[in-house]
C-alpha cells in the first residue's frame, strides 16, 4: 500500500467540526495541549502558533491546558496548528469539551460571585452594627434608621448569596433526606425574619450582621471545597481530553483520513506510525513490527510481533509503522473494559461516608430537636409564645454549623496544598481521609518498585571504547533498548549516515547494532539484549534488565515502621519477582498475577475488613487501583491508571508517598480537633441561647471566633 509513505501533512482529514465561528468573522479552534508548565511554554506555544501566517490570536490557558487559536484567513488549516504545537514538543489534540465541564465552570463563577457579594455586605453591615453595639449615645431614631439600612442591604444579599445553600437544602428535603445545608438555610432565613420583626417592633435584637457574616464564612468554606475538587478534576479533565484519541483510517482510495477513534468499526484498516498508541483491539497486517505492551501487560520490554499477531488497545508501536485491521470498537476494546471496572470501583468509593457527612447526619436531628425542646420548655415554664419562638430561633441561629462547614475543607486545602508542593497530587478530598486509615500497602512491581525502564546490566564486562562505538549508533534511535544504551554511554556524537531498519537494527559505517539476526547470530539468549558487531569481528552482547528504584527499600521500611503491611503483586515471572522482592525487603509477594486476579485480591482484602493502599502504574493495575480503599499512581503511570488513582505522585520518586501518609494522618487528627472545637463552642452557646442570654453581639463574636479558630488550626498543616 503506497499510502504508508504519506507524510502526515498529506493526510486528507476533516477537523471542521472542531472549528467554531467567533465574532467578526473569525474562526476559533480549541486544542488540548499537554506538557505545558511554565512561562517559557506559554511564550513558545503562543509565539509559535502566532507565527503561522494568517493566525490572528493564540492564547493558552495553563490551568485547563486549552489553547484557543483564532484566524480569519481560509489558508489556515487546523492541521497546521496541531502540527506546529506538536513540533514544539507538546502533545496536542482537538479539544472536545464534555458538557460537564461547562457546568463546573458555571458553578465556580456562581460561588465566587456570591462570595464577593456577601463579603461586601459583611464589611458594610459590621461597620453599621458596631456603631449600634458600641454607640450608647445613638438616638433611638438614628438607631432605627441604621437597622432599616442594615435590613435593606442584608436581606437581598443573604437571599442572593445564600441561594447555594437554599437550593441544596431544597433538593435534599424533596427526597425526604437532610444535609448540613438544611440547618444553615433555616438559620439564615430565620435570622432575617426575626430581625425584620424585631426592627418593625422597634426592639434591638437584630441578627442582620450575623446572617451576612454566616453566609460569607460558609461560602468561604464552600469555595475552598470547590477549588479543591476543581483542581483535582483538572487533572482528570486533562486525561479525559487527551483520551479522545484520533486514528488514521484508510479510505477506499487508499488515502488516509483522520477520524475519532470511537468512529472506528471492525473491518477498518488503520495506520499507526512508530510511537503511536493503538486505540482499539486489532490484528497486525503485512509486515512484522514491534510493540511496547507495558500499558496492557505491565511488561516493560518491547515485544516483537509477526504479521497477523493480535494486538490489544493500549499497545504502542515501537517498530516499523504498521497497518492494523480493527477487530473491535473502542467501547468493546480492552480500555473500555477497564473503564467499566473503574466505574465499579468509583461506585464502591462513593459509598464511603466521610467525616463531614457523618457529622452532618448526627448534627441535624440533634439541633432541630434542641430548638423544639427549648420552644416547648419556655411554653411550659409559662413564658409567652413570642419569647419561646425567639429563643428557639436563637438556638437555631447560634448552632448554624459555620465552624463545622469550615472544619473539613480548611484542613483539606491546607493538606493538599502542602502535598502539592511536595509533588503529590490529591485528586479527591476524602482520598486523604481514606489514606489515613490504611493498614496494607500493595505494590505493583514493574514501573512502581522498579524504574520500569531497561538499564544496561553487563556494563562492567564491556570495554569503554566498544560502548562508545555502539553508542554512536544507539543515540540515533528511539528504541527503548538503544536509548538505555545511549544513557549508559553518556552524551556524545551520533554516527553520520545512520540507517535504521525497523524491527531489526541500526547500521552505519560497517557497524551494526540490533537484534541477534541483524548481527549474524542465529539465535540470541532471549530476554532483552542488543547485539553489536564492528566489521567482521565477533559480535558482542549488551544485556538489559529493569532496576529497582534507589528509594524503594527505604520507602518499604518506612511503611513497616508506620504499622503498615507491605505486599507485592506482579504479572511478571516468579524468579524476576523474587529478586526484586528480596531487594526491596518485601516478604509477602505473588508473581504471575493477572489484572483480574489483582482486582480479586483487592476485593478479598476489602471483604476481610482490611484497608488497602494500592500503588501501581500499568493498565493491568487499573482495576486494582479502582477497587482498593485508596490508590496511588506514580507520575510515569499510564493515563488510565492516573485517572483511576486517588493520588498521583509527580516526578520520579516514591518517597513523597510516605509524606502523603503522614500528612493524611495529621490532617485527620486536625479535622477531629476542629470538630471538637466546634462542638465545644456549641456546648457553651446553646445553653446561653436556650435561656435567652445571647445578644446579637455575642452571636457575632462567637461565630466569627470559632470559625477563625478552626481555620487557624487547619493552617498548622501548612507550616513545618
Amino acid at each position, binding site marked *: 500500500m503506497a499510502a504508508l509513505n504519506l507524510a502526515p501533512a498529506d493526510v486528507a482529514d476533516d477537523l471542521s467540526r472542531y472549528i467554531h465561528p467567533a465574532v467578526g468573522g473569525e474562526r476559533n479552534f480549541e486544542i488540548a495541549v499537554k506538557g505545558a508548565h*511554565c*512561562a517559557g511554554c*506559554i*511564550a513558545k506555544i503562543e509565539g509559535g502558533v502566532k507565527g503561522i501566517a494568517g493566525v490572528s490570536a493564540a492564547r*493558552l*490557558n*495553563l*490551568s*485547563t491546558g486549552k489553547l484557543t487559536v483564532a484566524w480569519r484567513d481560509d489558508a489556515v488549516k487546523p492541521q497546521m496548528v496541531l502540527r506546529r504545537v506538536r513540533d514544539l514538543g507538546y502533545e496536542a489534540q482537538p479539544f472536545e469539551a464534555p458538557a460537564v465541564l461547562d457546568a463546573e465552570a458555571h458553578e465556580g*463563577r456562581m460561588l*465566587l*460571585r456570591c462570595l*464577593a*457579594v456577601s463579603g*461586601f455586605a459583611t*464589611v*458594610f453591615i459590621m*461597620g*453599621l452594627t458596631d456603631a449600634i453595639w458600641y454607640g450608647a449615645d445613638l438616638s433611638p431614631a*438614628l438607631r432605627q434608621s441604621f437597622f432599616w*439600612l442594615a435590613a435593606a*442591604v442584608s436581606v437581598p444579599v443573604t437571599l442572593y448569596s445564600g441561594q447555594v445553600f437554599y437550593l441544596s437544602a431544597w433538593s435534599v428535603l424533596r427526597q425526604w433526606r437532610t444535609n448540613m445545608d438544611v440547618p444553615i438555610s433555616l438559620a439564615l432565613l430565620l435570622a432575617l425574619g426575626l430581625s425584620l420583626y424585631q426592627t418593625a417592633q422597634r426592639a434591638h435584637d437584630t441578627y442582620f450582621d450575623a446572617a451576612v457574616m454566616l453566609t460569607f464564612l460558609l461560602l468561604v468554606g464552600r469555595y475552598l471545597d470547590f477549588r479543591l475538587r476543581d483542581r483535582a478534576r483538572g487533572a482528570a479533565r486533562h486525561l479525559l481530553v487527551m483520551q479522545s484519541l484520533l486514528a488514521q483510517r484508510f479510505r477506499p482510495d487508499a488515502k488516509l483520513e483522520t477520524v475519532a477513534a470511537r468512529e472506528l468499526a471492525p473491518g477498518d484498516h488503520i495506520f499507526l506510525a512508530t510511537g503511536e498508541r493503538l486505540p482499539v483491539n486489532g490484528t497486525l497486517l503485512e509486515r512484522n513490527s514491534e510493540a511496547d505492551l507495558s500499558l496492557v501487560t505491565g511488561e516493560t520490554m518491547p515485544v516483537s510481533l509477526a504479521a497477523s499477531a493480535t494486538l490489544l488497545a493500549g499497545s504502542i508501536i515501537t517498530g516499523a509503522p504498521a497497518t492494523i485491521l480493527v477487530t473491535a470498537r473502542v467501547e468493546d476494546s480492552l480500555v473500555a473494559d477497564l473503564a467499566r471496572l473503574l466505574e465499579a470501583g468509583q461506585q464502591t468509593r462513593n459509598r464511603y461516608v466521610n467525616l463531614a457527612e457523618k457529622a452532618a447526619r448526627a448534627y441535624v436531628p440533634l439541633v432541630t430537636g434542641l430548638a423544639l425542646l427549648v420552644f416547648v420548655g419556655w411554653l411550659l415554664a409559662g413564658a409567652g409564645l413570642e419569647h419561646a419562638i425567639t429563643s428557639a430561633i436563637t438556638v437555631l441561629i447560634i448552632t448554624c454549623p459555620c465552624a463545622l462547614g469550615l472544619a473539613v475543607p480548611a484542613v483539606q486545602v491546607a493538606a493538599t496544598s502542602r502535598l502539592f508542593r511536595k509533588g503529590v497530587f490529591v485528586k479527591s478530598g476524602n482520598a486523604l481521609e481514606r489514606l489515613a486509615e490504611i493498614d496494607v500497602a500493595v505494590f505493583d512491581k514493574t514501573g512502581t518498585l522498579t524504574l520500569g525502564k531497561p538499564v544496561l546490566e553487563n556494563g562492567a564486562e564491556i570495554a569503554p571504547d566498544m560502548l562508545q562505538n555502539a553508542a554512536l549508533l544507539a543515540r540515533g534511535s528511539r528504541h527503548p533498548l538503544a536509548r538505555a544504551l545511549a544513557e549508559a554511554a553518556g552524551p556524545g556524537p551520533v554516527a553520520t549516515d545512520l540507517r535504521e531498519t525497523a524491527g531489526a537494527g541500526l547500521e552505519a559505517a560497517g557497524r551494526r547494532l540490533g537484534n541477534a539476526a541483524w548481527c549474524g547470530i542465529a539465535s540470541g539468549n532471549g530476554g532483552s539484549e542488543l547485539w553489536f558487531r564492528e566489521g567482521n569481528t565477533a559480535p558482542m552482547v549488551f544485556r538489559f534488565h529493569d532496576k529497582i528504584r534507589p528509594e524503594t527499600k527505604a520507602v518499604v521500611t518506612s511503611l513497616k515502621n508506620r504499622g503498615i503491611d507491605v505486599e507485592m503483586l506482579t504479572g511478571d515471572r516468579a524468579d524476576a519477582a523474587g529478586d526484586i522482592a528480596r531487594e526491596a525487603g518485601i516478604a509477602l509477594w505473588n508473581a504471575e498475577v493477572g489484572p483480574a486476579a489483582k482486582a480479586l485480591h483487592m476485593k478479598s482484602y476489602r471483604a476481610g475488613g482490611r484497608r488497602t493502599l494500592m500503588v501501581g502504574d500499568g493498565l493491568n493495575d487499573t482495576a486494582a487501583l479502582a477497587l482498593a480503599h485508596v490508590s496511588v499512581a506514580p507520575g510515569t503511570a499510564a493515563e488510565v491508571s492516573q485517572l483511576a488513582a486517588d493520588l498521583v505522585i509527580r516526578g520520579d520518586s516514591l518517597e513523597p508517598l510516605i509524606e502523603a501518609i503522614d500528612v493524611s494522618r495529621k490532617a485527620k487528627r486536625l479535622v477531629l480537633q476542629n470538630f471538637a472545637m466546634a462542638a465545644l463552642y456549641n456546648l457553651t452557646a446553646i445553653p446561653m441561647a436556650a435561656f435567652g442570654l445571647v445578644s446579637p453581639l455575642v452571636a457575632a463574636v462567637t461565630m466569627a471566633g470559632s470559625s477563625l479558630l478552626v481555620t487557624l488550626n487547619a493552617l498548622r498543616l501548612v507550616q513545618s
Partner: protein
Amino acid sequence: MNGMAVVIAAALLLGLGGLGVLLWALSSDQYEDLEGDALRILNDDPPPPAS
C-alpha cells in the same frame, strides 16, 4: 447628622464600587487562568514596532 448620612452613603458607594469592579473582572474572564497569568509576567512583551 448630615455628616453621618454623607459618610454612610460614601461607604456604601465605595463598597458597591469595589464589588462592581470584582464582578466585572469575573465576567471578563480574568479569573479563568490564575496559574498562567501569574507566569505570564515573566515573559517579555514583543518589542514595539520601530516607527
